């Protein structure tokens, strides 16, 4: 090695340490901290194990949010969907981007500390080129990748500690979710429902990466629920898991959402198709299934119920309910009840236009269907909400100060689908609907031409909607709510990131970003100053829906791509 090379190597080796000089030493992330996160931090995907998307910080309020200004921004160098929250631990910030990239920053200044990118197999196809965030645990950071690996990094330096294969990407398995960390385990699930995978949730030892357990979301014959799949259909039955589960430390149970059954046409797999379109209660120690609730059986509409329910203790119907709340892709807002095992049904009501369910059983929550709105092979029907549902993956938020649940919804939108026969081939699309049909599936009546996107606020005690803000077109904006009586969200094709009065829904502030904002927002505090952070970066399903709108509307909308981290604070 030449002396010049040695010098460069030495500079690189010490660069991370030098850049940490202004930061406190890294504080390991423990189970106790994750269970009761400090208000100044945002330690996990939704800020707490309950999935609230809530920060108690209240320096930025509904009175002063108009003075919010950009503190710093940073171009990630990537296109496509930037969806991960900026995760913050005592001044260290971490974001992930498409193409399996993680960037660490000094949260208050935007100074880059390190950057990591896992190489991508040359032959990989990325149906959803995105990543929805990292998990922090101990002094490590965990990343789930689109080539279905789990990666452990040193959170201080970005050094790669281990890479563990989780599933075979050649067969269509890929991961986009932020891992869930609890009780010494790192838990992930796999996408790939459109490729005929058999979904699962798996846990890995946080220290060694050794697999601790794997629970399939689609049971085999002989297992409970296996009788709901005819023949070998369970082998390619979908049930993907692509959003982080929530967790109740008091019971050691994590709650995960499960995607749609595959292929799309229900007559290809007659039966209830457990546990597709369900919430699962899994013992974090063992992976044992402790309970479940299937929102709708024998799915026909591509309605993944993959968002994990929020854990909210609420007074409802004259009693205290330890609830699980889920704004379903099927257009109903569900209130379930958690326990040390089984999941009970409490109530459900439509929050967007829905023409498929004819009734909901008051005891079990099981719906009945209108066959004229249920697709099938060689059958063409329209149905509402659209195949993207009343709410797709963008998470709801719950504010314990207002007692309101906030939903990023798409209302008034319908789809038309025609089922076609399909044949499984490993790694190939396995849907049973022609691509041209998917491209042109959107059906927009007069209400949809007036507005589609909404931010809704619901009082869970009464089951009543308190306010609605409407957008002319779609909303793909994950929500953040804060102790300052605020709700933040983007998601529109005008690239705006907005702040709402959490009590009234009034728009108080908005900022035109460089791209559409489909990132999960977060809030944190450094040296007594509160910040709001989010990534701009339009792509993936928001872009797909835009394409479908362009196909039926008289105008076309171009939303530029390219990721930017934005961090805001109050102007002095």
């Amino acid at each position: 090695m030449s002396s010049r090379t040695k010098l460069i190597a030495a500079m690189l080796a010490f660069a991370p340490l030098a850049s940490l000089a202004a930061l406190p030493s890294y504080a390991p992330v423990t189970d106790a901290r994750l269970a009761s996160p400090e208000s100044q931090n945002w330690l996990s995907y939704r800020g707490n194990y309950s999935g609230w998307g809530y920060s108690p910080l209240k320096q930025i309020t509904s009175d002063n949010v108009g003075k919010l200004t950009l503190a710093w921004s940073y171009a990630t160098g990537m296109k496509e969907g930037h969806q991960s929250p900026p995760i913050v631990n005592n001044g260290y910030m971490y974001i992930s981007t498409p193409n399996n990239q993680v960037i660490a920053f000094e949260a208050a200044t935007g100074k880059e500390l390190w950057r990591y990118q896992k190489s991508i197999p040359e032959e990989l196809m990325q149906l959803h080129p995105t990543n929805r965030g990292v998990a922090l645990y101990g002094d490590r950071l965990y990343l789930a990748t689109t080539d279905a690996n789990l990666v452990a990094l040193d959170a201080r330096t970005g050094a790669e500690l281990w890479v563990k294969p989780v599933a075979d990407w050649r067969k269509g398995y890929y991961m986009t979710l932020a891992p869930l960390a609890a009780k010494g385990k790192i838990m992930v699930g796999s996408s790939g429902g459109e490729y005929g995978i058999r979904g699962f949730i798996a846990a890995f030892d946080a220290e060694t990466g050794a697999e601790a357990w794997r629970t399939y979301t689609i049971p085999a014959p002989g297992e409970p629920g296996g009788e709901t799949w005819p023949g070998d259909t369970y082998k390619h039955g979908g049930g993907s898991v692509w959003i982080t589960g929530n967790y109740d430390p008091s019971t050691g149970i994590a709650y995960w959402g499960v995607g749609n059954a595959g292929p799309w046409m229900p007559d290809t797999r007659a039966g209830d198709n457990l546990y597709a379109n369900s919430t699962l209660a899994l013992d974090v120690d063992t992976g044992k299934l402790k309970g479940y609730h299937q929102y709708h059986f024998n799915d026909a509409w591509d309605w993944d119920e993959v968002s994990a329910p929020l854990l909210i203790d609420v007074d409802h119907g004259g009693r205290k309910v330890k609830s699980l709340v889920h704004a379903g892709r099927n257009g109903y807002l569900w209130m379930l009840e958690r326990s040390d095992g089984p999941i009970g049904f409490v109530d459900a009501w439509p929050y967007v236009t829905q023409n498929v369910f004819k009734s909901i059983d008051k005891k079990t929550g099981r719906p009945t269907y209108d066959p004229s709105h249920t697709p099938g092979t060689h059958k063409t029907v329209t149905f509402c909400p659209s195949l993207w549902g009343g709410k797709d993956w963008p998470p709801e938020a719950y504010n314990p100060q207002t007692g309101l649940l906030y939903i990023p919804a798409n209302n008034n939108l319908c789809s038309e689908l025609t089922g076609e026969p399909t044949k499984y081939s490993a790694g190939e699309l396995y849907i049973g609907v022609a691509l041209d049909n998917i491209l042109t599936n959107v059906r927009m009546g007069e209400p949809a031409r007036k507005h589609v996107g909404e931010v809704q606020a619901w009082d869970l005690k009464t089951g009543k909607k308190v306010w609605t803000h409407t957008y002319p077109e779609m909303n793909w904006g994950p929500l953040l709510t804060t102790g300052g009586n605020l709700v933040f969200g983007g998601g529109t094709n005008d690239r705006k990131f907005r702040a709402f009065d959490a009590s009234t829904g009034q728009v108080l502030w908005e900022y035109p970003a460089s791209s559409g904002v489909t990132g999960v927002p977060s809030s944190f505090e450094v040296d007594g100053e509160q910040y709001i952070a989010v990534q701009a970066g339009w792509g993936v399903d928001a872009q797909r829906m835009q394409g479908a709108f362009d196909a039926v509307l008289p105008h076309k909308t171009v939303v530029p791509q390219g990721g930017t981290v934005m961090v805001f604070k109050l102007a002095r």
Partner: protein
Amino acid sequence: MHRSDSPHPDSPPCASRREALRLCGGALAGLASGLCTPAFANDDPAGARPQAGDRLVLADGEGQRAPLRLADIEAGAKPLMALPLDAASGTVRDGSRLNKLLLLRLDPASLEPSAARNAADGVVAFSAVCTHQGCNITEFSTEKGLLLCFCHFSQFRPAAGGERVAGPAPRRLPMLPLKLEGDVLVVADGFTSRPGATL
């Protein structure tokens, strides 16, 4: 910047030593190593990219597959999925999904020069892998004469040499030049550009 470069059991091999060197050049070798297993592993003809003299066979065939002839490609029909066949060893090059090909027979008069120079009596061959995120291209609109990618809806015009006409793909589909030996379709040269995603 840390980068995971270690070969992974799930990582695919590079196409071939010769192609990797041609595509990457010395200065970009490090980048290429981030995209595939840096072992130049494919002296195996099944994984090597198509080469001049290769024949073509149907991708979904089994056993001994007969080289495709001009008459096997129906004019105006939807594209056939095909693979190259190493004529010397009789090996179907199915060791890499980046070898998947789409075969179409178009009216020779409709071909623009970029397509005509690589066509054999109207038969054109394209990489079946989208240049955006590497998804398989499976759909063809006979009405519009466009190939369509299901992942993100990029569209390509075969008659214009695979030119991108819509969607997020940043570049055209690579063509595989063809010629006729008698009535047998034969590969005339390697891909016109690197097949696969543009990262």
